[in-house]
C-alpha cells in the first residue's frame, strides 16, 4: 500500500505543458470515464447526505441492532447501535473523502512550492530543504502518520494534519526533480538572459511544466490517502464517536464480524471502490497528458 506512493521514476524527467485538448484523450479512456462517474456519484452522495439518507446517522434503534441488509426500511441493514447503514455510509463518506482529498491538496501545494524552490535555487537552499525532507523520508509513511496523529489530540483535524505532513516530502521530491528537468532546458537560459526575474521565470516556465506530473501524482495519492486515512480512523486516531467515517465503521464491525459481517464489509468495500476510482482516473490522466509515458 505505501510503496505505491513513490512516483514513477520517469515521470519528472520529461517536462511538458498542460494542454487542455489532451483532456479529450482522457475522455476516450473508458475505464477512466467510468471511474470518474463512480467517483462523482460517491461524492454527490456524500455532499447530499442530509437529503439522501432516509434516517439520520445518529438515530439509534436498540431493537433493530445488526439488522441484515434488506430489512424493511433499512436498505443496507443497521450497525451495532441500530443506526441505518445507508445514512452512516453517506455521512461517513464526507469524512473519508475529505481525509483523502484535503491533505493531498495541501501537501501538493506545499510540496510543489518547496520542490520548485529547491530545484530552482539550488545551493544551500536546496540542501537545507532536501535534508529536512530526508528526515521525514526516514519514517515509513504509516508509522509517521500514526506517531503524529497519536501524539496530538485525536480528531479529524489531527488526521488531516498528520497526513499532510507525511505527504509533503513525496510531492516535494517529485516537484524538485521535475523542476531540475525544466531548468536544464536552454529556454530557461534564454529567459534569464532576457532579464527575467526568478519569480517570473518560475511562474511562467517552471510551474506549467511541473504542474502536469504533480496533478497525475496527486490524483493517485488521493486514492491512497483514502485508504491510509481510513486506516488511521480504524485505529481510533481519526474521527471520534459518534461521528464516523468508513475506517471507523470497519473497526466498529470487528467485534460482530461473525454475526453481522455487513457492518464491516460495506464500508471497506466503499473505501476500495473510491480508491480504485482515483487510481483509474490517475492512470487515465497520465496517459492523456503524456502519451510517451505509456506502458504498452
Amino acid at each position, binding site marked *: *500500500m505505501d510503496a505505491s506512493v513513490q512516483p514513477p521514476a520517469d515521470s519528472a524527467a520529461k517536462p511538458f505543458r498542460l494542454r487542455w485538448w489532451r483532456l479529450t484523450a482522457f475522455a476516450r479512456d473508458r475505464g477512466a470515464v467510468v471511474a470518474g462517474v463512480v467517483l462523482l456519484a460517491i461524492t454527490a452522495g456524500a455532499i447530499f447526505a442530509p437529503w439522501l439518507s432516509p434516517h439520520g446517522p445518529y438515530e439509534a434503534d436498540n431493537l433493530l441492532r445488526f439488522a441484515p441488509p434488506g430489512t424493511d426500511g433499512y436498505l443496507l441493514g443497521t450497525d451495532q447501535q441500530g443506526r441505518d447503514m445507508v445514512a452512516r455510509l453517506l455521512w461517513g463518506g464526507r469524512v473519508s473523502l475529505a481525509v483523502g482529498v484535503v491533505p493531498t491538496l495541501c501537501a501538493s501545494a506545499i510540496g510543489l512550492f518547496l520542490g520548485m524552490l529547491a530545484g530552482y535555487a539550488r545551493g544551500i537552499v536546496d540542501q537545507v530543504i532536501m535534508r529536512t525532507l530526508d*528526515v521525514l523520508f526516514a519514517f515509513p509513511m504509516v508509522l509517521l502518520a500514526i506517531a503524529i496523529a497519536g501524539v496530538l489530540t485525536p480528531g479529524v483535524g489531527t488526521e488531516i494534519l498528520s497526513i499532510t505532513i507525511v505527504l509533503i516530502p513525496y510531492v516535494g521530491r517529485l516537484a524538485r526533480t521535475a523542476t531540475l528537468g525544466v531548468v536544464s532546458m536552454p529556454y530557461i537560459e534564454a529567459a534569464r538572459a532576457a532579464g527575467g526575474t526568478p519569480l517570473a521565470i518560475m511562474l511562467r516556465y517552471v510551474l506549467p511544466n511541473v504542474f502536469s506530473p504533480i496533478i497525475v501524482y496527486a490524483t493517485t495519492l488521493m486514492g491512497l490517502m483514502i*485508504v491510509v486515512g481510513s486506516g488511521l480512523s480504524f485505529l481510533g486516531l481519526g474521527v471520534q464517536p459518534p461521528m464516523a467515517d468508513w*475506517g471507523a465503521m470497519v473497526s466498529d464491525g470487528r467485534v460482530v464480524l461473525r454475526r453481522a459481517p455487513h457492518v464491516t464489509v460495506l464500508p471497506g468495500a466503499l473505501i476500495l471502490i473510491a480508491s480504485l476510482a482515483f487510481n483509474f482516473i490517475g492512470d487515465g490522466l497520465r496517459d492523456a497528458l503524456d502519451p510517451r509515458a505509456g*506502458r504498452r
Partner: protein
Amino acid sequence: MGSFVGKRLLGVLPVMFGVSVVIFVLMHLAPGDVATVLLGPQATEAAKLELRHALGLDQPLPLQYATWLWRTASGNLGTSIATQIPVSALVLPRFVNTLILTVASLFLSMAIGYSVGLFAALRGGSLLDRGVMSLTLIAGSTPPFWLGLILVLLFALRLRWLPVSGMVDMAGDGGVPDVLVHLILPAITTALGPAAIITRMVRSSVREALDRPHVRVARAKGLKRGTLLRRHVILNALPPVMTITGLQLGYLMGGALLTEVVFAWPGLGSLLYDSVTARDMPVVQATALLIALTFVLVNILVDFINVVLDPRLREA
C-alpha cells in the same frame, strides 16, 4: 565499493540525528502531563513537582534531548511508564516478531510479484496480461485492514481452517509449525499491496528490457530462449525491480503495523499502537527510533545491491 557503503553509512548519521530530533519534539508536543498520568489526578502539586524533578522534566529542553540521546545511544532506553519494564526488554522480542512477519510477507510478495509479473510481461497485450493488470490495480487499492478482516471472516470464522489471531496458540506448546499457521493470514494481508506493486514493476521492466537492441543481437548468436531470457532480459530488468522490492521491505514494516493490530500479532507495530494510545512515551520513542533506523539501513542495503547489479552505477 567499500567506500560507497562507507559514505552512505556516514550519511545515515545526520538523518538519524534529524529523526531523533523529530521524535523528541513530537513527544514533547503531546498534550497531557506525565506526572498526572503516573500519580493520578488526585495527586498533590508538590508530589507532581517532585516526580517531574526526579524524571528530569524540569530541565531545559535541549538538555533533556541530549540526555535522552546519550542514554539511548548507550543502550539505556528507559522504562515503560505503563508496565515499569525496561523498554529494551520490551522492544527486542517484538522487533523479532515483526521481522518474522515482515520477512514472510516480503518473500510472499516477491514470489507472487515476480512470477505473475514475468508471466504477464511475456504475454504482453494478451487478455491474461490485461486481466493481471486490472487485478493489481484492485489489489493495490484494497485497504489492508479490511482485507485482513475479510480473510479472518472467511477462513477463520466461517471455514475454521486457520486461527483468528495471535502468533501462537495459547493452549498449545508453540513451535515453528504453530507460528507458521498463524502467519498465513497476516502475511497474505500484508503482502497483497506490495505484491501488486512488484507485479506492475516487474511487468513494465521486463517489457522494456525485451525491447532493447542487445536482445536481438543475443538472439542472432543462437542463444537458447532460456539463456536469452536469463542473461539479457531478466538481468537487465532487475535494477528497478530490486529498488521497488527493497522499498517494500521498509514500507512493509509500516504496513505490517496495521496488520499486527488486526491480527493481534505481538510485534513492534502493535506495541507502537498500544503505547501511543497509552501515552507511554519512552516506549513510543524507542519503537519509532528503531523502526526509522531499520528503514534507513534497509534502503542503503537496497542501493548497495543495485550497484552490484548494474556496473555502470559503480562509478557514480
